[in-house]
């Protein structure tokens, strides 16, 4: 159903998402999901005029999943997308003309989490428990790798499947003990709903090194408007750096634009969690969005091994990202 919506969008509007408005480039940034703390830096940059100063009139649109965001960018419906880079790689390997021009989350936010009072703190504790997953999403596809790295087997626990909301409901209502989620997304949502602390077991702590959300753009657009992409990335990087320094301000800007996107206290925690993922294991001193080659190579290798990416068409990591347009 989601796919059909994307098709309708793609078929209806094949215009490139850019038009000159009062001398500024009108840019649509399509997020990967409904707004939450991870997206706060963009709202901060918009509010403080960082994008304006680069001659960009930014329109932030909420998304319905990275897959749809990637398709919309590939079809030219949105100029930029903020989406899961592994998801984008999968689409690109099937011919979608998109590339990542900056990787925001360079350490994976993926984790398996449950309420702290259940005392599930390390992988062995998962044995005998029930885990809620969403079939087909990026986390459920990385999950087997986490199991392998931690020596767990499918039979060690029970698994239930449902959509994003069902996963949360299942844990809140004790139908499941754990869910697969992002440390700064589902963990916060569980806390907001129940006021109970949540303990995530991070995939990244057990050797699953994979990049996550990044900024993606259509290849043709990149070729035709390299200057716009550079200006956009400059503003985006500045927004992220400011959000790292001042997470409260970023969350305030987000809540002002999207009042329903969270609760201030927990969203600030989420923003700080997000900021801690801006650096990858191989480039601790780089500015945000600039990703290390080793990190991308490893991501691609994992996708080929576990993510259903066809080795024959996978190519190499360089085919899917570039740091060349970053300041």
């Amino acid at each position: 159903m989601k796919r059909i919506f994307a098709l309708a969008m793609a078929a209806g509007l094949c215009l490139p998402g850019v038009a000159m408005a009062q001398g500024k480039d009108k840019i649509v940034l399509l997020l990967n999901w409904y707004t939450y703390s991870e997206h706060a830096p963009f709202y901060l940059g918009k509010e403080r005029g960082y994008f304006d100063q680069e001659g960009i009139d930014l329109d932030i649109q909420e998304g319905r999943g990275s897959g749809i965001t990637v398709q919309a960018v590939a079809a030219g419906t949105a100029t930029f997308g903020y989406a899961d880079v592994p998801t984008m790689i999968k689409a690109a390997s099937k011919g979608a003309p998109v590339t990542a021009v900056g990787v925001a989350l360079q350490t994976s936010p993926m984790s398996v989490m449950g309420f702290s009072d259940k005392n599930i703190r390390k992988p062995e504790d998962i044995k005998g428990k029930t885990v809620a997953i969403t079939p087909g999403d990026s986390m459920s596809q990385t999950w087997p790798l986490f199991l392998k790295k931690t020596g767990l087997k499918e039979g060690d626990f029970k698994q239930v499947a449902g959509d994003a909301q069902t996963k949360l409901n299942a844990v809140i209502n004790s139908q499941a003990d754990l869910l697969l989620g992002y440390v700064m997304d589902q963990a916060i949502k569980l806390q907001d709903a129940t006021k109970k602390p949540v303990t995530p077991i991070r995939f990244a702590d057990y050797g699953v090194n994979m990049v996550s959300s990044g900024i993606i753009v259509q290849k043709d657009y990149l070729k035709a408007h390299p200057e716009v992409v550079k200006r956009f990335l400059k503003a985006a990087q500045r927004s992220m750096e400011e959000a790292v320094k001042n997470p409260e301000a970023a969350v305030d800007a987000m809540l002002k634009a999207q009042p329903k996107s969270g609760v201030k206290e927990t969203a600030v925690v989420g923003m700080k969690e997000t900021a801690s993922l801006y650096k990858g294991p191989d480039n601790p001193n780089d500015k945000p969005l600039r990703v290390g080659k080793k990190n991308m190579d490893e991501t691609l290798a994992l996708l080929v091994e576990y993510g259903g990416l066809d080795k024959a068409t996978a190519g190499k990591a360089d085919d899917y990202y570039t740091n060349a347009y970053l300041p």
Partner: protein
Amino acid sequence: MQVSIWRRVLYSAWARPILLIALLIVLWQLAIWIFRIPPYLIPAPFDVVKQLVNEWPKLWRETLVTTYATLGGFGLSILFGIPMALMIAYSRTVESFVYPLLVFSQSVPKVAIAPLFVVWFGFGIIPKVIAAFLLGFFPVVVSTVVGFKSVERDMIDLARSMKASKLQIFMRISLPQALPSIFAGLKVSVTLAVVGAVVGEFVGSNSGIGYVLQIANGNFDLPLMFAALTILSLVGVILFALVDLVERFMIPWHASQRNDFSATA
């Protein structure tokens, strides 16, 4: 000779939809060629068929799961829908209390409340059956009410004047006259029940066509997704045809059944 075979094919009821489908598939392929639609937006028909064949054992297994949930929901729609419609049709009091509420409930988007079914009823088949039931229930009620309300008063008066009992009037006059309308509702209901079952599976399930759709969606496997959708549509068509078949046996005298035209064949 050649012409007459073509003509016969063209005039036979079973061949027409197949011809139309073939035409649509050709147009689909042509559209992909002419507008250069990339495969990550719309898959080519041939790729869909390939996935249909390659993944058939799995697809078949999941189809059965979805069909069970559909039939469960459809069965409940009949079980609850027809008695409720009878009460509405025969009692103004019940009608005034229940009918507006029923219409109100029908306008609630099932997708929005489906996640709650999983909370209430768990991850088994029950939430899917309920989702199928909620979508299939309403058309059964509405058309059954219409059927019983449009029974000719004169016929009933005549039977009554001949001292027919209430049961006799119901069995001999009201029910037969209402049946065509009831079956119209059942046909709508069974196709909607398929949709309901998939909505249920989307929200929370380890199996079924809805589950396949989610996986295919996550992997940009559009051919598999379209293959699953094709099967789903076929399930709808077959169930529709079965209801149609039952209808032929039960009301062979009705106008809709007298000629050999059929909406499904």
